[in-house]
């Protein structure tokens, strides 16, 4: 049976991994940590009733909490930057991932969660549906719409590989 000690062990072991996932769900790093702490605290009242590995339960709570708090949060945080931050070095792989992450940040919370869970973390459709509390059909339709939207966003913000930012050329 789970105990506070087990909770402490779980937090110590899995907090960074949970934050990494949360960083894909919300753009702001501090809000990502806040989301993980929020999810962990929501799990406390039922901690003793969680069977098996609690991580799946915590991640489910995290995803759903993020979606349900979206409206409140978006008013204060959803402000994707228009201009790519300047980087001191030019790495096409890093630039591509930055662009992808930024495009993810412009999706709505449900679509973002679907993309992260389904395509980044590679979870099965049924598992994603269970975690989000929706139907399999909804996951599929959200996934399709999200990918289409991502393609548009990436096309709009595409940075030519042959033309690195001027800042990276300055010695």
């Amino acid at each position: 049976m789970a105990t506070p000690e087990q909770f402490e062990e779980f937090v110590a072991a899995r907090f960074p991994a949970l934050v990494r996932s949360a960083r894909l769900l919300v753009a702001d790093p501090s809000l990502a940590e806040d989301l993980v702490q929020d999810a962990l605290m929501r799990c406390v009242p039922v901690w003793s009733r969680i069977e098996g590995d609690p991580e799946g339960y915590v991640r489910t709570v995290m995803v759903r909490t993020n979606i349900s708090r979206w409206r409140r949060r978006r008013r204060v945080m959803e402000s994707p930057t228009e201009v790519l931050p300047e980087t001191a070095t030019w790495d096409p792989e890093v630039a591509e991932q930055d662009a992808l992450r930024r495009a993810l940040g412009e999706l709505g919370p449900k679509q973002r969660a679907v993309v992260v869970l389904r395509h980044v973390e590679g979870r099965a459709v049924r598992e994603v549906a269970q975690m989000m509390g929706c139907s399999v059909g909804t996951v599929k339709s959200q996934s399709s719409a999200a990918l289409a939207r991502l393609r548009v966003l990436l096309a709009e913000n595409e940075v030519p590989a042959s033309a690195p930012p001027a800042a990276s050329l300055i010695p």
Partner: protein
Amino acid sequence: MVQPGLEERLTRLVDPQVDAVVPPADELWQRGRRWGRRSRLVNVGVALCTVALLAGIGVWGSQGLRHPGPVQPVDSGSGVGVPSRVHTNISSRMPYLAEPGALVAVTSWSHTTWWGRSEPAVAAVSARTGEYGFVRTPGMAGGEPALSPRGTHLAYWTAGTPSGSPNTTRNDGGTLTGVAVLDSVTGEVVRHEIETAHGLSDQELFWLDDQHLLVHPFHLLAGDDGPEEEQWASRGKDAFVLDASTGEVSPWRWAERLPVDGWLRSGDGVLVSERGDALVNHRTGRVLEVGLPADPADLVTSDGALSPDGDVARVVHGDKNTDTGLTTIWVARLARPGSAEKWREVPREGSYVHEALGWRDGRIVALTGGEEQALILVDPSDGEEETLVEYVEDDGRGDGSVGWSWATDLLQTADVVDSQEPVYPVNPLLVLGATAAVLTAAAIAVVGWRRRGHP
């Protein structure tokens, strides 16, 4: 432009560099427990509020479904009674009387169904319990019902298909083609279809006694495709008597010698033509050589009342020279033709009298009109008045004012008993709406708190 390989790029999306500091787990645990307790308190609070509100709605919604007082047989030796007060404002959502029994008063009134649809119906006051409610009248198609003298039978018009083009303009409930009689004690209904080309006007139904209904059908002259002026005209013909128990029909035997409308009725089968020119016994077929004195003043008169002793009371409206709205009550005794008997005006300066309904212990039962409606007893010798049934006017709870038709024999003989109040059910759609609103508000409160609540 669609960039290919997006899904593959997503799978290669590496986790961002995370330098998060692991928070103190014991602090998270304590905050989580506090949040859990708050959550339970909110849930319990919302649940209690919801239950309280639903209970309130339940009480509010059921208020009009129960009779304010206990429904018991009236305190009367005969088992039937006349209520001391009658409400003129009633609800179209009243329930049906479970066991109507004899009825003391009825009125044509629309019944509003659960979903708000209106249908022609008969509202009644039970002579057995004093309850108000609707009476089940299968096939009723509108028009005024006729209550038998002792309140045991109710006659009403039914709709059907005429032999020619139907006239649908005269009656909202359909083309009238028949008459039905409800036995309010047994619940049995006797129906009789009348052969008609375009339909019937809702007149005349007259109870000769508690078992025999005189029907004088007025046939509409044209259907919907006929001349407009004829669609509203009708002609009476082929009066007949319907036996309420057996449903047997016999021709009205006085059709040639005597008019079929304008009768005064008294006792078992004794009738007087309103013109005062004949007294007949419809059961034996005898024409008695007695009648009424000459008309009091060649004035506009209303229906009259004939007592078992042969006293007749009639209300005269206005004056033959000045149409003042004055009403006077005149009385006379049945007399042989040529006798010196004359009409005599009852000396009184009381309220406006609408019509005379009967005789009770030597006094005239009359319906007063104007602002203060009531059934009063008028002493024919000195005009002294006493209230028999008080009319309770609009108190804002009903759906409209009605005019009651009374079981005249009960008015003359039954004991006056304590009255019941009608029920005024709340619109069930309002109750449903309020319930849904409370449940929705509770759900919003719980979900909203859980979404906004930060542990």
